């Protein structure tokens, strides 16, 4: 008897280990998302049980006993209607506030984030560390350091998803999207593509390795000696002849790029834009769309001459030229 109960429990335990209820929680936000999830699950189970319970109870209690039954007719009960309108409304309002606050908190990377760049292409993830290492379908990240990913796609829309971190964002061609996370548990985790992208969509997967910061530093330093993104960017800057116009001492026909990153810039059409990754990318591939008031519109487009990877290198180089004093990133107190 006891043995059979024991083996029964073991069986259940075994099943539970086969079917976990949530993926590994390995980032600073994972627990918060799980809390929200299991609260919602509780609400769902409660109301489903309530409705099914009522249905079964009424089915039995009020089952038709003869075809001539004349059931009592109750057609309306206003207080009841108001109650069951108000309760879902209040629950919805509460969940909305909770979920939105969490989302907004998760949407802004801390200023101290280290940055890694992601390019999706059919059907692989290309990941680029500023220090130089480039990876395919593998991402090494340090433990307990906020990491910001700046992502774009070379072809169709992909979806960058690390279940263990509870983060996901579409990777869209022609624009930069970004997510951030702070890994809290060392280990190896899945990386998936979640936006259908063609034949090998389901093979566009990889692994994320969360390493102790010292191991990570060793990993960065080890392996083949790569030039850093800034170095590649500087080389490209030179090769493409950008220097001719964008001279550092502001003697060229175009503006100097020294310290422009993060600065608000007034454009010829009257709008003000912060010089960020998106703006620099736009200036490279479609320069006439971000004309400055005091400079002639003579810059040719570099679309087709540089691929998304090289655009990122150039951006890294421009960022290395210093950031403007008025950058809102700097003003904002760290979270």
């Amino acid at each position, binding site marked *: 008897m006891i043995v059979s109960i024991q083996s029964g429990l073991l069986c259940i335990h075994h099943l539970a280990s086969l079917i976990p209820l949530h993926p590994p929680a390995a980032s600073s936000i994972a627990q918060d998302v799980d809390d929200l999830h299991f609260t919602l699950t509780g609400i769902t189970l409660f109301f489903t049980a309530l409705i099914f319970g009522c249905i079964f109870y009424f089915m039995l209690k009020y089952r038709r006993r003869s075809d001539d039954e004349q059931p009592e007719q109750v057609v309306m009960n206003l207080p009841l209607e108001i109650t069951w309108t108000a309760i879902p409304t209040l629950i919805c309002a509460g969940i909305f506030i909770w979920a939105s606050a969490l989302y907004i908190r998760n*949407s*802004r990377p801390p200023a101290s984030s280290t940055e890694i760049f992601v390019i999706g292409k059919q059907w692989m993830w290309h990941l680029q560390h500023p220090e130089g290492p480039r990876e395919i379908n593998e991402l090494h990240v340090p433990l307990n350091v906020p990491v910001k990913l700046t992502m774009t796609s070379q072809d169709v829309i992909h979806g960058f998803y690390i279940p263990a971190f509870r983060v996901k964002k579409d990777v869209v061609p022609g624009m930069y999207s970004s997510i951030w996370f702070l890994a809290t548990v060392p280990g190896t985790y899945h990386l998936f593509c979640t936006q259908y992208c063609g034949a090998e969509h389901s093979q566009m997967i990889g692994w994320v390795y969360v390493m102790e910061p010292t191991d990570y530093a060793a990993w960065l330093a080890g392996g083949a000696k790569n030039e850093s993104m800034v170095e590649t960017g500087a080389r490209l800057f030179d090769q493409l002849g950008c220097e001719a116009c964008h001279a550092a001492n502001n003697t060229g026909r175009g503006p100097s790029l020294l310290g422009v990153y993060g600065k608000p810039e007034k454009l010829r059409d009257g709008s003000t834009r912060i010089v960020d990754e998106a703006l620099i990318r736009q200036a490279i591939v479609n320069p006439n769309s971000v004309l400055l008031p005091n400079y002639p519109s003579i810059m040719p487009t570099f679309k087709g001459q540089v691929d998304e990877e090289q655009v990122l290198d150039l951006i890294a180089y421009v960022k290395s030229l210093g950031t403007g004093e008025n950058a809102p990133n700097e003003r*904002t*107190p760290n979270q």
Partner: protein
Amino acid sequence: MSEHVVPVKTYVGVFVALICLTALTTGAAYIDMGRFNTVVALAIAVVKMMLVVLFFMHLKYSSGMTRIVVIAGIFWLGLLISLTLADELTRHWTPNAGPWGLLLPFLHF
């Protein structure tokens, strides 16, 4: 019930107004008003539409139901455009940190 008969005079008046407004909108395009060129052009187009709908299409003399149908059409088109614009116009905004961070981009613009 028979449909309201609109006097020829009204039709001709509306017609003349429409032609004048067409001339006006074309002429206005040659005057530099900055971004108000678009505003003026659209305002004139709305007036012209109203004239056609009210008089040529007899909405002025029609039942409430027809009016509801017209208003629904305009309302839903407005929903489509305004909610899509709500995304497109705010896509590059990021909320700043802090309790009021959500509102900061509004102050910035």
